[in-house]
């Protein structure tokens, strides 16, 4: 049975449409990623599923409970980590955790095994005020606080935003461990490179789910030819404009220190060789971000 089941959810703020016709299911022990840029509607969706906002239309069930009618029951069974750091900065690490444990009528001792892996890493700083922690440690503490009452479903809204790459990697390793305990994790992120850590992902933009698939399938379904060329920082926009004017180029965009070029078919690569030395251009397999760009076009 699906732990989270969303049917045709829509949300409007006055006339601004935040979410349109969102539907998906997430199973027990699944990491379901919601990937999209800032302002795509991720936080609105999380707030609706955590019973903080009412949807304008549609319905959803979490752990079999209706998000509108049974909001009290849902609030007991889920863990939620908002996008913004939302713990008490003037309380110490330990005080925060023990406060949130008591909020859910439990104690740190009782459920220590659930958070042990994560909490051990921040335990040396347990007497430090939460506001004085580094970004990565803050997120670990927030995850502990969201986990301490043994939730069945975890909602993590951009848990790795503002966290250094090493901590981000650690964080995903921890999520994988939680998943093995049977917890369903709904996680959102603006970082496309994190998508491969999810079982299934939904690509969201402008309040619409463009695709729901496993990361492998999303890449597999990419039907264009993708090339990459190195480019200096200076004059990047000029080069991109020039490439776009070449026959057979369907899209072209900056990608880190490279430029990615999307071609309609294989032969078009010849046209590019008029601009670049042939060894500068190489065929590459697309990343999730490339798929997102293609879907978004």
């Amino acid at each position: 049975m699906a732990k989270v089941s969303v049917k045709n959810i829509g949300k409007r703020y006055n006339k601004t449409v935040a979410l349109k016709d969102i539907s998906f299911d997430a199973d027990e022990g699944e990491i379901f990623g919601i990937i999209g840029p800032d302002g795509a509607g991720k936080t609105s969706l999380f707030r609706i599923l955590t019973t903080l906002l009412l949807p304008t239309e549609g319905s959803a069930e979490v752990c079999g409970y209706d998000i509108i009618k049974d909001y009290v029951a849902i609030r007991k069974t889920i863990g939620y980590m908002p996008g913004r750091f939302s713990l008490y900065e003037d309380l110490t690490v330990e005080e925060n955790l023990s406060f949130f444990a008591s909020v859910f009528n439990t104690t740190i001792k009782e459920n220590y095994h659930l958070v042990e892996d994560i909490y051990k890493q921040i335990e040396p700083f347990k007497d430090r005020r939460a506001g004085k922690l580094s970004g990565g440690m803050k997120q670990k503490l927030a995850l502990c606080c969201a986990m301490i009452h043994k939730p069945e479903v975890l909602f993590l809204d951009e848990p790795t935003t503002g966290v250094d790459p090493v901590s981000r990697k650690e964080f995903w390793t921890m999520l994988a461990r939680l998943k093995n305990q049977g917890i369903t994790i709904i996680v959102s992120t603006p970082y496309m490179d994190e998508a491969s850590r999810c079982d299934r992902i939904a690509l969201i933009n402008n309040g619409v789910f463009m695709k729901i698939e496993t990361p492998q399938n999303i890449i597999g379904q990419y039907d264009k030819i993708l090339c990459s060329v190195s480019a200096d920082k200076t004059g990047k926009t000029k080069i991109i404009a020039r490439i776009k004017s070449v026959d057979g180029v369907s899209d072209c965009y900056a990608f880190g220190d490279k430029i990615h070029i999307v071609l309609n078919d294989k032969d078009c690569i010849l046209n590019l060789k008029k601009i670049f030395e042939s060894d500068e251009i190489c065929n590459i397999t697309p990343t999730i971000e490339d798929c997102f760009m293609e879907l978004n076009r």
Partner: protein
Amino acid sequence: MKQFFSFVKKEFYHVFRDSWTMVILLLMPVVQMILFGFAISTEIRNINVAIVAPEHDELTKMITDKLDAVDYFTVNGYFTSMEKLDEAFRQGDIDCAIIFGQAFEENLYSADGSSICLSVDASNSNTATTMAMYAQSIISDCIKELSPYVGAAGIAPDIKMLYNPQMKSSFNFVPGLMGLIIILICAMMTSVSIVREKEKGTMELLLVSPVKPLTIVISKMVPYMVMSFVNYLTILLLATTLLGVPVAGSFLTLSLLSLIYIITALALGLLISSATQSQLVAMIGSGMVLMIPVLFFSGLLFPVEGMPKVFQYFSWIVPARWYVTAAKKLMIQGLSFRYVLQEFIVLSSMAVLFITISLKSFKNRLS
């Protein structure tokens, strides 16, 4: 219950660890005491005056008519004995009384002369001075006019300042100050602290939990309730030791009254917090909604009796007005519980009303 206590503990951490909150909480009463040491006196109107005259003769009648004609005074009762006069003072029906001696007019021309006594309710020293001054000048005018040959020196009214014989302004501003400090600390601090949770996003986490709104709300109240009770005691201690303000009535009744007022103020803070989304708005809102009415309508700066009727009616909805009135009766006049029953009832109903509304309007979701 354990949940509630851990909430209360958390609130105390917030208060004790924020050095600015602590400074405001502890220093405000002291600073305000110094500031308000220089109270402002103003002209007053609508003084209710009683006439005590054993015999009605032409001169007493003349003085009475003249008082009634002046728009400061309203003659509000004629008594023949002193007992009834006391009762009228206590009920607050009259602010001052003119007591004519035996056979007033007749004795005026005798060798002994005649006596006239002016009794003034001096719970509010500023108004008392002004009232006495007005009455005195009217009386001497009348006498001069009627019997020029007696001369102004013939009779000098004997002025008695009831409840506050030394006319200390601190008698007036101390109860007012207690009303102000309590409402500022309770209402402003609670509203700001609830709104802070909304602003910092922690309210989002609390909402997504089994916690009942009542637990969140009541636990917020506890630290500020303790703090303002400590402040109430501080002010009282400073007032009695440094300024010589008496606590003529029962200390227990006064404390009970203050506690009810504290709860009313806390509930008001909750109301403000449910209507605002940012700490700044809550702060300004409390300032506008609480501080100004308290300053103007509790009799702290200006006597309410001197205001146009509209404002006098408006003052009825200001909790501080009821508290300050009752506190004055208890502290300065030394009256017993039965004379402040009305204020007790009004404040208690206000508290119940505010708490009900704020719990009803507590949002279970984000707006």
